[in-house]
């Protein structure tokens, strides 16, 4: 019988959302339309329209050694062209953000090739070749993984994911990279805090009901409490118990 991945335990809406995001057979829901050049501006790695700087010659010109693995694995577009490795880093508020760092890493590992994610408590960075990065960033910003108010692009000075929101509903950002302007959220700085020549509109912030229904983070005050998901607790306790006992007797 063919193996069907389950992606994660749980019966709550949060666990269902986690599974939906991780499953590469399900497409993300498109929520907004930030264009390519705006994404390049937000990332701040190169000027929009400029050529991709390279770290090495294209693989076709370089002459690859005779290697069976290279014959099996096709290089990604960025690797084939010899692009530099660049990053995007996102911060997710604990107040019902649609995605969160661990979840992001799982999602990216299931869906993309040639990436190097780094997971921290409040932020998640993913590194890959520049042109691959721009495609991934498009997915991360334009789909249901992103909320303009509670998810934020922050390359540095990331503090804010665990704080209260501001009066207008925005997550605290010491550098105020994005502002609420005329009902929509606009980025005025790129991800590392350098001012942009033009504002980049990332659309309206999602309402509380949508966030509660689409979040992948448990929260006992503003969202779905972890304790309400008995199946998830049972799974976490089982893993914890096995890990603890493993050194002594690696059987259940």
């Amino acid at each position, binding site marked *: 019988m063919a193996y069907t991945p389950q992606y994660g335990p749980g019966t709550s809406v949060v666990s269902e959302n986690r599974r939906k995001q991780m499953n590469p057979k399900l497409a993300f829901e498109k929520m907004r339309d930030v264009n390519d050049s705006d994404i390049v501006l937000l990332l701040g790695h190169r000027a929009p329209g400029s050529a991709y700087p390279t770290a090495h010659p294209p693989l076709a010109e370089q002459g690859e050694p005779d290697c069976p693995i290279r014959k099996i694995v096709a290089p990604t577009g960025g690797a084939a062209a010899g692009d530099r490795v660049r990053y995007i880093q996102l911060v997710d508020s604990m107040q019902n953000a649609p995605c969160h760092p661990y979840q992001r890493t799982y999602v990216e590992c299931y869906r993309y090739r040639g990436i190097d994610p780094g997971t921290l408590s409040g932020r998640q960075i993913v590194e890959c070749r520049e042109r691959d990065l721009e495609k991934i960033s498009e997915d991360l910003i334009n789909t249901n993984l992103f909320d303009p108010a509670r998810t934020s692009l922050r390359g540095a000075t990331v503090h804010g994911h665990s704080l209260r929101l*501001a*009066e207008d509903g925005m997550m605290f950002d*010491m550098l105020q990279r994005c502002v609420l302007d005329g009902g929509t959220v606009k980025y005025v700085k790129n991800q590392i805090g350098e001012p942009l020549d033009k504002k980049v509109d990332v659309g309206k912030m999602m309402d509380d009901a949508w966030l509660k229904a689409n979040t992948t983070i448990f929260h006992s005050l503003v969202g779905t409490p972890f304790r309400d998901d008995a199946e998830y607790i049972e799974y976490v306790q089982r893993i914890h118990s096995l890990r603890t006992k493993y050194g002594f007797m690696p059987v259940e």
Partner: protein
Amino acid sequence: MTDAVYPQCKIETERYLNPSTTEQILNKIAEIPGIRRIILNGPNIPQVVPYGPARGVPNPHSARGAIIVGGEEIDLRVQVGTILLELEDKDILPEIRSACESVFTTLTFSMKEGRFMRSTPTQTDYAKYGPNADAMLYGIVDPKNKTGPSILQGNK
């Protein structure tokens, strides 16, 4: 003889306050006679980007700026989330609560009574203020910051 222990209270709001809301609540509080000290707590907002590739670049931020409280201009350097008050008497607590209720109409808030301000100097306080410092200064302003506290004209 022991020093008098003054009652203190802490006001925490559900969300971080805009400078305009901070100005409103502080002006209401400043009108109440019998408040000795006010401390505004919240995450710091630096004037320039402190670290990272953009280090040293100016950092315009709508939550930082000058507010007018009791006719005095105060330079707001944090996004206010907690207000600590030291009172001369507990009797004014209901007045403070009603001031909060009149300003925080769209937010919930909590008001707690207890000890929230430092009463003894830290090593940094000692280095900055010396051995015979006024105890009123402890904890009232970030000792690493070069600026001092703002003094509002009393209304007693």
